[in-house]
Every structure is written in C-alpha cells, then in structure tokens.
C-alpha cells in the first residue's frame, strides 16, 4: 500500500495516479502533490540543482512520516517518490500521492506528508545560480507549516 522510492530518473505522475486508482476501487479521491524545480530562488536565476540524500535513513524517515499520516487519517495507498542527482528548472523533484475513500482525508494526508518530508527527511539541495553554487537554506515557512498539524486531529 505504501510505495517509497528515491531515484535519479524522472517519474510519470499520471502513471502513478492510475496505479493507485486501480489498486483499490473503493477509493474515491486521489490527491497528488508534485514539487517542481523553480527557475528562481531568493531572487537569483537558478540553472541547475544537485540533490543529495542519506541512503537508508531517507527511506526510513519517509516510511515513518507515512505511518504517522496513517495514524491520523484513514488513507488508502500512498506513493512518495523523490529524485536525487542533477536537476534542471521545471524538472519534477518530488511526488506525494494519496488515495482515500473521501477527499478531505486525501488532502490532509498528502499535505501532512509533504510538510514533514520538507523538514524531516534527509535531503539537501545545492543550486547553481548566476551568483555561483550555494547550498539551499532551510525555509522559515516550512518550519511554520508543521505547526498547523499539532493543532489538528
């Protein structure tokens, strides 16, 4: 029911969604988040990005986040795919797809997983900008995004 993959190659969001739908015909909702590499960050044009991770720990961290989501909501299937290696603008970085019988749980589950992935899963981004190479700094807004989940459920 859970698919967690770290990979260099691109993914096909449509195929992943279709697979989740076919896995269980009692699920009426699929919510899907795709994170995309932007061509700008902190006001500078970005031409390339290198994504590094901690093999083993990353998969475990993602698995735990998904399980935490399952404790909070009635979720069907969950797919998390995160790319690593070299990426260009408009490349898809991450996919989180969640099915549920009804849409509210699918929306909450999907947003919860991506919010926690952003601050708990060991990935690091280094970007090449017009100002040279630099490691991406963590975002205050990502830390703030976690807070909403303590209030709910």
């Amino acid at each position: 029911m859970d698919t967690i993959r770290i990979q260099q190659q691109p993914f096909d969001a449509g195929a992943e969604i279709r697979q989740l739908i076919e896995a269980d015909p009692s699920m009426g909702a699929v919510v899907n988040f795709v994170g995309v590499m932007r061509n700008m960050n902190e006001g500078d044009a970005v031409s390339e990005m290198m994504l590094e991770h901690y093999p083993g720990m990353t998969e475990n961290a993602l698995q735990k986040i998904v399980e935490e989501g399952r404790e909070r909501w009635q979720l069907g299937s969950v797919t998390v795919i995160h790319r690593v290696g070299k990426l260009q603008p408009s490349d898809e970085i991450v996919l989180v797809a969640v099915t549920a019988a009804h849409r509210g749980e699918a929306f909450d589950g999907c947003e919860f997983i991506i919010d926690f992935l952003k601050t708990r899963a060991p990935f690091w981004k280094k970007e090449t900008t017009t100002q040279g190479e630099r490691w991406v700094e963590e975002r205050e807004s990502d830390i703030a995004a976690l807070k909403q989940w303590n209030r709910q459920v």
Partner: protein
Amino acid sequence: MIDILYFARFRERLGVEREQVALSTPQQTVAMLMAELAERGDNWADIFKGTHQVLVAVNQEIVKPDSELNDGDEVGFFPPVTGG
C-alpha cells in the same frame, strides 16, 4: 569503532565523506564526540562548536547531543534538511 558520515555542506567543508573512529571513552556521548571533532582544526571547530545548526543521527535516527554511543554505531552529521 564507529562509522561517521558527513553530508552536504559539512562533507564539502571538511573534505570527508565517511570515516571510522574509535570511541575515546566507554560512555561517550554525541556531544563529547562533537567536542573532540571540533579540536581537529578551524573548519571542524567552525562546524562543531560554531553557530551552525548540526543535526545528528545515530543508526539513522535523529538523536539529541546527550545520547550515548556504542561500538558499531553509524553516526551521521548534517545541516537542516532542504528536500522536497
């Protein structure tokens, strides 16, 4: 012996990706290990007793600095994560 892994800007700055070190005392904590590493030179001091936020995983689980280390542990040091 323990395995130490360095990631992202720490790996780059220190020029080390992975190393094996012996525990210096039987009940060494993560904080004690970090203090030892800080003695290795300026780059090390900057990371391990500077203003950097250092996250530590022992056997791939995030831990606090007062966690004790055991022979055979894998210790990962890394900055705040920025995936997704």
